[in-house]
């Protein structure tokens, strides 16, 4: 190993250009090279082993608990299986049935409804919050913590607390609305029209603190010189935000959008505790439908088919986002 290391620089060094030295190296490096190649391989192998030993525990966990079940999920989506019996191959039956399943359609529409409001609202509010707290206001650290706090609080506690706030007669939300002259405030989670907006509101409130932190980190990467130059050029605050801040934040915005999209499509626990999908099916989303079909009705084949659709939906939307982002970068 040392031969190669020493010989290499000699050959390419400033003094190693003569034919003599080249000739010397014709045999020397060949022998050394044969040993060196083995040494290289050995070293590489050793380094690979070291690398693998670092990632192996994580990969084993991933393979066993994520990759394996995902592969099994795709297989099961083409079967009829109730956990105990043999999984019976039914081809595309589950998917053709899904196409006719009104409850699945409702769950899909509700998921899109939730995502269509939750993603832009969270994005806008978390960015606004980040911009506000990036200005070095007095007590900014406190407000940052306060905004982040809901994200680390138990989702069950949040859901119960908000349910109480949304209570039709005694809830503070409706009492405040009453102060503004709203005579017939909605029943919120007990109303099929208002349950989803209520859930979205809580979802946005809970998550905007987390995305605010990401935006705050992104704002640190915006070069102050650009703002300075724009200011000298006479750009106003809105122009600087639009032409300097936003373009510089593009990587962060892209990441936040992708994460928000996937999170919104998979929303489950908040809805389960706040409304359990109701009233009726007004807040039933795909994740809960999967839970119902799989763990409540023991129709794991059918539930797997819904999971595959959800997986495909997440993949498709994320792929579109990647493509749009790439085009913008170009």
């Amino acid at each position, binding site marked *: 190993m040392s031969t190669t290391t020493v010989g290499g620089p000699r050959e390419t060094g400033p003094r190693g250009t003569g034919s003599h030295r080249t000739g010397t190296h014709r045999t020397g490096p060949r022998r050394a090279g044969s040993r060196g190649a083995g040494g290289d391989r050995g070293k590489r192998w050793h380094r690979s082993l070291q690398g693998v030993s670092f990632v192996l525990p994580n990969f084993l966990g991933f393979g066993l608990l994520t990759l394996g079940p995902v592969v099994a*999920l795709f297989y099961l989506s083409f079967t009829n299986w*109730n956990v105990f019996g043999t999984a019976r191959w039914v081809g595309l039956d589950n998917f053709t049935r899904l196409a006719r399943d009104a409850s699945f359609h409702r769950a899909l529409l509700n998921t899109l409804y939730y995502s269509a409001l939750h993603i832009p609202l969270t994005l806008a509010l978390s960015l606004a919050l980040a911009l506000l707290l990036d200005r070095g206001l007095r007590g900014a650290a406190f407000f940052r913590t306060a905004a982040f706090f809901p994200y680390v609080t138990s989702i069950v506690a949040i859901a119960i607390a908000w349910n109480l706030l949304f209570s039709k*007669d005694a809830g503070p939300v409706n009492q405040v609305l009453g102060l503004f002259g709203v005579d017939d405030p909605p029943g919120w*989670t007990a109303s099929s029209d208002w349950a989803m907006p209520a859930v979205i509101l809580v979802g946005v409130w809970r998550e905007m603190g987390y995305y605010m932190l990401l935006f705050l980190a992104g704002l640190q990467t915006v070069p102050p010189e650009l703002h300075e130059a724009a200011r000298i050029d006479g750009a106003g605050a809105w122009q600087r935000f639009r032409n300097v801040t936003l373009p510089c934040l593009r990587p962060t915005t892209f990441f936040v959008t992708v994460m928000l999209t996937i999170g919104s499509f998979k929303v489950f626990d908040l809805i389960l505790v706040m409304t359990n999908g109701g009233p009726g099916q007004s807040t039933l989303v795909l994740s809960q439908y999967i839970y119902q079909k799989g763990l409540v009705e023991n129709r794991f084949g059918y539930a797997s088919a819904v999971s595959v659709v959800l997986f495909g939906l997440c993949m498709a939307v994320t792929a579109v986002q990647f493509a749009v982002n790439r085009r913008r970068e170009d």
Partner: protein
Amino acid sequence: MRHRHPGRTAITAAVTALALTATACGGDEAADSGGPVTLTMSAWSLNSTPEFTKLAEAFHERNPDVEVEFKEYDATNYDTQLTADLAAGSGPDVFVLKNLKNFFTYQSGEQLLDVSDVAHGLGDGVNGLGDYEVDGVTYAVPYRQDSWYLYYNKDLFATAGVTPPDATWTWAQYERAVADLTAGLKAAGSPAKAAYQHVWQSTVQGLALAQTPGADLDSGDYGYLAPYYRRALAQQEAGAQVDYGTATTNTLQYQAQFGTQQAATMLMGSWYVATLIAQQKSGDAQSFQWGFAPAPQRDGGTGDKPVTFGDPTGLGINAAIDEGEVAAAKEFLAFVAGEGGATALASIGITPATLTEPVAQAYFAVQGVPADELSRFAFTTHDTRAENPVSPETAALQNILQETHSAIMSGSTPVDEALGRAGARARSEVLGSR
């Protein structure tokens, strides 16, 4: 314990790992036939659910060679966790069937041993035994058979000047009493409501299914629920009970509603007797005179044996149990479903599946159990129909009906429209896909 279908077990373990919270696998002691045997049994919330320990201790007293050890599961996710264990081949030797909704899954999945011989030995006096019979074979035995009563607060009835219920109350009489209670309590300055109806679908649908002749969950025709829903909505609108929206958003507990005298009547399962007694002792419930009556009836014709509902709680034997333990497991089943187990359960205020005179005596000897004639009649005399009749489609249909319940009770959808939709969904999504 034998592990059947190892390949399938591996797939099962992998898939369930995504969504199921598997509990630690317990090992079994293989027992030599004739020697000491240790059976493992599923259970939940051992600290607050004394029935399992009581049954195991009572059985061990009579059979010193057999010990029962518990494998504890989470009460809320019991069936999910047990299913995961059974599918992975690490389930307990005997396991509890918490209700009838999942019995079909275990039975059709061949997880239950044929215990017809135990059932034959028990005779006809065990309530709910027939629910575990499929094609002439019995797969489990019930050890408790809860049924629904009308709980009433005697003090609040006196305050309102309303005559307490009797054994023959019809729904019409109940409605009149609720109206009188509402007016009487208000006149007396009491903040209590006449009734509390909890948010579960059972509170309306269970009694409708049990009491309506010809009503069938599998029919896809849910018109029989309409009068029961109209009554519940009318009482809600009249302010006789807390409305559904408030009960759900405020996460009201039925125990607190009746136990702290916020409601004069409440339809609830027989398990609440033991809960209320315990809460009155601990101070979580107030001290007042109360009793329980048969649930109101569709008409007066069932007065001699009021019709109510409730699923039995059963015990089955894991089909993969070690052969050397089968005899002991069957003995245990025979004990828990028989008079011995029933007396043990009754002595801690639980309603067993076997209701004989000694069992009733043990039950009413428990301190705090109302000893009046009406309560005694409600306990000993009733025709309890299953809330979840055994069928491959029950779980899916109950899901549809649960969504229907929240749609109606929240006032989101008119009764007839919601029931019509439920029927259409049942036919297209469940019954039509058979």
